[in-house]
């Protein structure tokens, strides 16, 4: 027997596998464009894992926005279509389906400590290829660039030797090969 109908809305679909996608979005750098994009994601219930914006072509006032998001295949398709529909958006490119894209993130990491942990922090930073931007008798600020995974690994080791503060840029991404966006 059927359950009495409680609602006219359709039921939730079965869980589908989710995937992480990196999107490059070229937009007119006009007031409110970032709010439109952020509002699209929150209003329609999409995830944002990382979002990076900067004007890339100053004369044309074009900004490049890199968004990392997760969702089912259907949701990712919707996200791209919804982004493309916004008036100030020029192009939306899914770097993840174009093949393995290059993704980099920069982090500033402050580490505080003395004695053995200080020496250890210095040594580990060297191993990760981090640059030392600031040093006092009790602290360092390191700059590290890499994929999100590399940065996560760096932060994990630093947390053992006195990490107190992190600032990350979010992801900048680009497709490999000769073709430009």
């Amino acid at each position, binding site marked *: 027997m059927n359950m009495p109908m409680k609602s006219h*809305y359709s*039921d939730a*679909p079965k869980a589908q596998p989710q995937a992480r996608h990196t999107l490059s979005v070229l937009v007119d750098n006009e007031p409110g464009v970032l709010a439109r994009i952020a*509002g699209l994601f*929150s*209003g*329609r*219930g*999409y995830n944002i894992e990382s979002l990076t914006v900067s004007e890339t072509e100053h004369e044309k006032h074009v900004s490049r926005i890199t968004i990392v998001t997760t969702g089912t295949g259907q949701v990712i398709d919707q996200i791209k279509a919804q982004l493309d529909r916004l008036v100030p958006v020029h192009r939306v490119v899914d770097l993840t389906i174009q093949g393995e894209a290059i993704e980099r993130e920069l982090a500033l990491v402050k580490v505080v400590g003395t004695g053995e942990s200080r020496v250890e922090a210095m040594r580990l930073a060297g191993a990760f290829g981090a640059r030392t931007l600031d040093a006092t008798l009790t602290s360092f600020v390191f700059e590290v660039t890499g994929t999100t995974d590399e940065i996560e690994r760096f932060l994990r080791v630093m947390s053992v030797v006195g990490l107190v503060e992190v600032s990350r840029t979010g992801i900048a991404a680009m497709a490999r090969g000769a073709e430009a966006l």
Partner: protein
Amino acid sequence: MTRQMTGAEMVVQAMQDQGVEHIFGYPGGAVLPIYDALFQQDKVKHVLVRHEQGAVHAAEGYARSSGKVGCVLVTSGPGATNAVTGLTDAMLDSIPLVCITGQVPTHLIGSDAFQECDTVGITRHCTKHNYLVRSIEDLPRILHEAFYVASNGRPGPVVIDIPKDVQFAKGSYARPMSNQHKTYRPQIKGDMGKIQAAVDLIASAKRPVFYTGGGVVNSGPEASALLRELVRLTGYPITSTLMGLGSYPASDSQWLGMLGMHGTYEANLAMHDCDVMICIGARFDDRITGRLDAFSPKSKKIHVDIDPSSINKNVRVDIGIVGDCGHVLEDMVRLWRAQAPQVDKAALGEWWKRIDGWRARNCLGYRNDSKVIKPQYAIQRLYELTKDRDVYVTTEVGQHQMWAAQYFKFEEPNRWMTSGGLGTMGYGLPAAVGTQMAHPGALVIDIAGEASILMNMQEMSTALQYRLPVKIFILNNEYMGMVRQWQELLHGGRYSESYSAALPDFVKLAEAYGGHGIRCSDPAELDHAILEMIDTPKPVIFDCIVAKEENCFPMIPSGKAHNEMILPDFEGKTGDIIDAKGRELV
């Protein structure tokens, strides 16, 4: 005690736990589970309005007249969008509301489902805070937090958007020990060093004025009592904004009347010429300051406000005190009593002499008429014939609103409900419905214009359904009078689309709704007709036919300073008063 219940039951339980007695709403698909939960209890009484905008204004009237949080329940999509004007109104006038909106089930959000709209996106800028509840576990906390956020600090509207699957879902509910927010902690007590500095400055003043506002009403009746105490201790003059009327009694000799664009000559000149301005719970709105570079150029300014962003927003002040004005006033009164400072009696005597000179200008004087009812006269008679009763006044927006503010005298706070910041035509009738719900035995009058009243006329049905004997007193000038006045002053008297053509017969309209209709156009019969209105124990529409082209003066024309007011006895061409620059300011 933790209990298992559905999300819909949690909504109703949390309302009960918050002491909510009335909720204004309108049902629809996305809130049916909540309506079902309401049906099965009788502690929270639902008031069925006839339009969701009316629900929000009714909750505003309820909140403003009672000091409680107003509650609203509407469905998704059109229910939520219809509520937006009311929410914005509450935002601008700092009215505490909790508005529950239904939403499509979580998995359909973003799919343009039936009656879906991005409610939290749409209301982000017209609420103090809003929530989309994504899981049943969050619901109890959010429900209680919403009441805390709405009523603490600077009050405002809070929206809780609840998807239908969350309303059906079961979870555990416990009444929280406190409904505080985890981080939001508005500052209540003022900085004592600054309060002392303020008291010193107040004591040293030669030409002081108190400028108070809606914040005193927001703070509660104790703040009004403390304000009265401080003002009487000092002996200084006091004026208030439109939103603050009633926190100081209009019958008192230190009262200068309202200030601002349509404020009194004495209030505005006192503001312009003062040497110490004591602003308490007012926000230096442009209807007050006029031209900023000419605003009270010679004064030192003290500003007490609970919202740090109000301080130094439009006008730079010398002493800015962040805190609840009730608490700050209490400290000020205590310091004043303990220190009993010597004020400059001679200077103050001079100051009052100048003020009395301005008062003698009789800026609210108008030429009465024996044949036509002057709108000012109508309000004066309405006041005289109702002042000894338990009376609450709401208004629509326009000239009638300003005449009500000028000629109706308020002695107590929470008695005057008007849309100040947003200026929403259509506010008054639903606000009267909400006010009457909170004060069943009182006389509640909506002072209306014939144009505004048509914007939420449907709420007459609500009044009838719940036997709320609200009185709608229409100053019918057959014009959108405020618009007509601006067109006379600014646009060469070209009355573009401001004539109220094809008006309904308001008497028949009242009867059609099941109320009582009265029409009066003869000044000699006005008192009698008003008494008939008061004595009618059901909703009344009073169609008061008034002079059609009366202007609302005094008025500070846009782009002018406080000492450049137009007074009622102005003889000249009104079209020449405002220059091109003023026209742009509006």
